[in-house]
């Protein structure tokens, strides 16, 4: 089988994606009086140059990997960048976020290539599962440390060393996905044993330990760091992975019951959880009560209502009326200016990435790789879902970034690492398939 053709596909898709991004950039800046957009050099560098460099790196380092993921990521990342530039320019005092984001994009591409270089064989990561588990926990709980931990916008999810702030939680997710994959592959036979409790079969209580630990950690994150989004994402990741590993739906049942219990407790005990629920008020209402001052969510709903089918047009809406629109609420800005069509296109792009990720998982040769790829895809797919669902009021708003699109360095870096890992697994699978075919042919010749 010739998987190398995948690179041609990738290049073709990349060209299409970049054309779209550059076009979007021109449109976004056209309404201004200047005939030639001012910052077209840096734009071309980050939206055309970077994907091309990453493409060349993949050609060299993972030549047989999936060809869909990188173009989709580059498209979403480029779209996000255009919006960050556009939103920043609309502000009375531009905060230079666009410049920072382009810097993060360069670092992200670096992290992407470095991951491909360092991880030459995904299977070898299995060895580091416990190290990863430890590192993941440390990263997750790091913001709680006294000196380095920082609370920004009410969430204690930041760590700062000197001038650099980052969210270790973004990397913790990757480490934990690795840990779960390795651990579950090791223990899945044991964990898969069900015991009948009357008519329903449930996991043996003595194997529920890991579930309870994961649940406990999720609660700690939610309560101590006030990070509902990460907590939800983390617990979802664990549940999905244990379910896929053991093939026992009973874990989902137990997990959902635990989640419901935890959520109920948290709702009653902690005001910030209550606040979030009250701000949401159910998916049926698109805005809060008229008598109250409009919240960030209400402003986002007003913004998206202006979108209509095809949107106000890039650069023509006024999404800056939503506070901190460039991170959590960037999806509202996209919906306002690109309309239902643009919003749906973003959804489709994420769905395609999920599809590609799950296909990689499905085809992977070893249980570890399958599980790891599933975990990584779950992280990407659910994180995007959780924040978009929050913005459109399908779920209570829990602040996480929209992968590849939102402004945010830690998130971008972590997601490029995630992407590289998926590509690495995909490349391994293809390489091994080719080797098998070759070996098979060899046997035939010899025989």
């Amino acid at each position: 089988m010739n998987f190398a053709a995948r690179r041609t596909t990738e290049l073709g898709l990349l060209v299409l994606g970049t054309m779209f991004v550059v076009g979007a950039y021109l449109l976004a800046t056209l309404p201004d009086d200047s005939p030639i957009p001012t910052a077209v050099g840096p734009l071309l560098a980050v939206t055309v140059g970077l994907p091309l460099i990453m493409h060349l790196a993949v050609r060299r380092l993972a030549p047989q990997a999936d060809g869909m993921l990188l173009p989709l990521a580059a498209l979403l990342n480029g779209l996000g960048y255009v919006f960050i530039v556009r939103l920043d320019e609309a502000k009375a005092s531009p905060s230079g976020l666009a410049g920072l984001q382009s810097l993060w994009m360069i670092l992200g591409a670096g992290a992407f290539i470095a991951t491909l270089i360092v991880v030459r064989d995904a299977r070898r990561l299995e060895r580091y599962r416990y190290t990863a588990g430890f590192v993941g926990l440390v990263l997750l709980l790091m913001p709680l440390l006294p000196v380095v931990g920082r609370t920004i916008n009410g969430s204690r999810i930041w760590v700062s060393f000197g001038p650099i702030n980052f969210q270790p939680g973004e990397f913790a997710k990757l480490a934990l996905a690795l840990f779960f994959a390795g651990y579950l592959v090791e223990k899945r036979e044991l964990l898969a044993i069900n015991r009948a409790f009357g008519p329903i079969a449930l996991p043996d209580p003595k194997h529920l330990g890991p579930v309870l630990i994961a649940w406990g950690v999720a609660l700690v994150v939610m309560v101590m760091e006030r990070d509902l989004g990460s907590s939800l994402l983390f617990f979802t990741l664990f549940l999905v992975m244990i379910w896929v590993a053991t093939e026992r739906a009973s874990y989902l049942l137990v997990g959902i019951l635990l989640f419901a219990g935890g959520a109920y407790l948290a709702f009653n005990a902690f005001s910030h959880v209550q606040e979030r629920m009250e701000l949401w008020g159910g998916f049926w209402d698109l805005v809060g009560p008229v008598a109250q001052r409009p919240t960030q969510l209400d402003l986002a709903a007003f913004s998206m209502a202006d979108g209509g089918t095809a949107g106000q047009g890039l650069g023509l809406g006024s999404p800056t009326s939503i506070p901190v629109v460039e991170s959590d609420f960037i999806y509202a800005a996209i919906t306002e200016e690109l309309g239902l069509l643009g919003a749906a296109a973003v959804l489709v792009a994420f769905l395609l990435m999920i599809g590609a990720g799950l296909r990689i998982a499905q085809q992977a040769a070893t249980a570890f790789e399958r599980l790891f790829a599933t975990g990584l895809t779950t992280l990407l797919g659910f994180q995007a879902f959780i924040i978009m669902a929050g913005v459109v009021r399908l779920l209570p708003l829990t602040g996480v970034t929209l992968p590849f699109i939102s402004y945010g360095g830690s998130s971008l870096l972590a997601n490029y690492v995630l992407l590289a890992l998926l590509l690495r697994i995909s490349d391994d699978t293809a390489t091994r398939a080719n080797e098998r075919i070759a070996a098979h042919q060899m046997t035939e010749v010899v025989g």
Partner: protein
Amino acid sequence: MSKQIRNLGVFLACCYAALFLQVNRLTIFQADELQDDPRNNRQVVRDFSRPRGTIETADGVVVAESVDSQDQFKFQRTYPTGDLFAHVTGFFAFQLGSTGVEREYNSELAGRGLGFDLQELDDLFVDRERVGNVTLSLRNDVQQIARDQLGQREGSVVAVDPRNGEIIALWSLPSYDPNLLATHDFPAAEAASEALNADPEEPTRSRAYREREFPGSTFKVVTATAGVERGGVTEDSPDYPVQSEYQAAGIGTPIGNFGGGSCGGTLFVILQNSCNTAFAQMGVEQAQAPGMTATAEAYGFNQEVPIDLPDPVRSRWPTEVVTDNPPFLAQASIGQNEVQSTPLQMALVAAAVANDGKVMRPHVMREILDDQGDVVERYEPSTWTTPMSEETSRLLREAMVSVVTDGTAQRLDDEVEGDVVVGGKTGTAQIGSDPPRSHAWIIGFAGPEGEVPHVAVAVLVEGQEGASEQTGGRVAAPIASAVLAAALAPPAAPAGG
């Protein structure tokens, strides 16, 4: 594992499908509802960041325009004439909303009017932002004379063209400077707004159409109309007895004349002398309560004036008080008791007499032009109410002219030159006796002989010292006279324009 991975894919696809449905609700199905949410100011923000049409007077003076601003809104609304047209243009402010013409014709000024939609297809291909420019029926020169004449006295001046309802001048003091509220320095705008709102004189409220006062003797024109239309009063009969007091049946203070004098006579004479006892008697005995009520309401009392400015105040005729209560009816018939009128309404009373008995819908917008100068909307004159027949109006016109030639309003034609017929009626509404203070009123009309008068006017000067039947004629008539003369003169060439 593969079954689980497939199911996971299906589950995620369902999640995203739910997202898609929710986005549909937001952008399509419930978008209108969200856009109508009172807290949604996005339309305002959009209008704020677009060019906006000018507002010009009939004689070509720009009274509101948008100029380039170096801030996030791109355009700053300015009002070059300051307080002069504040009550007409209103203001267009970000946090404080908008009022006046800025509010009434917001869509047109922003280029979203009905007439523009037909041209929208063009706009897809041509990069041009359409706006509508509003031309007012008001004249800058007349408005300025109104302001100069009223001077520092609180009160109102309303001039209207009886033939089509066009408002020519609408001035009241105190006024305010809309620039202070329209500024993009929001804290300053907020402070200015608070200061204006805290002012007990309420400078932002136009006294000309949003405040009512006792109309005093100017209301006798209404009583006369009721008497002629519904009480059989003619030029010659009845001949009201010369007396100093009139006591209607029932318990109540008798009606006296100003200064305790005695008067009486036929319609023209009692109107010229503004005879309280005779008009009280006419209201009670000839017109009677139902007739008075019908005529007052036919003039527009107890109704919302259909003017194209926000929140007009209804003038009041106290139907429920005067019914079956002759002493109160007697008071109401001379503009006392609970009768209250806006200056605008009293101008419309004069206009009805002038315009063959018909009150035209008053309006301040004459036409709206697009940026190419093509008319996209023109105000079509229409009749609002008809309080009297043409015949009655002819009689009353003559009666009011005789008030100027031989009665209390002799100063009304002082400023008017040429072959012009001037009619009027003064009024003095006493509001305090120690020291005596009163509101000085005059209503009137003027125009070339043999034609329907071209202008009707109402002037109210509030809180004047003294209280005699002469007060209205002495204080208000010179103002009205200057305004009538200015309105009859052809428009002055706009300064610098």
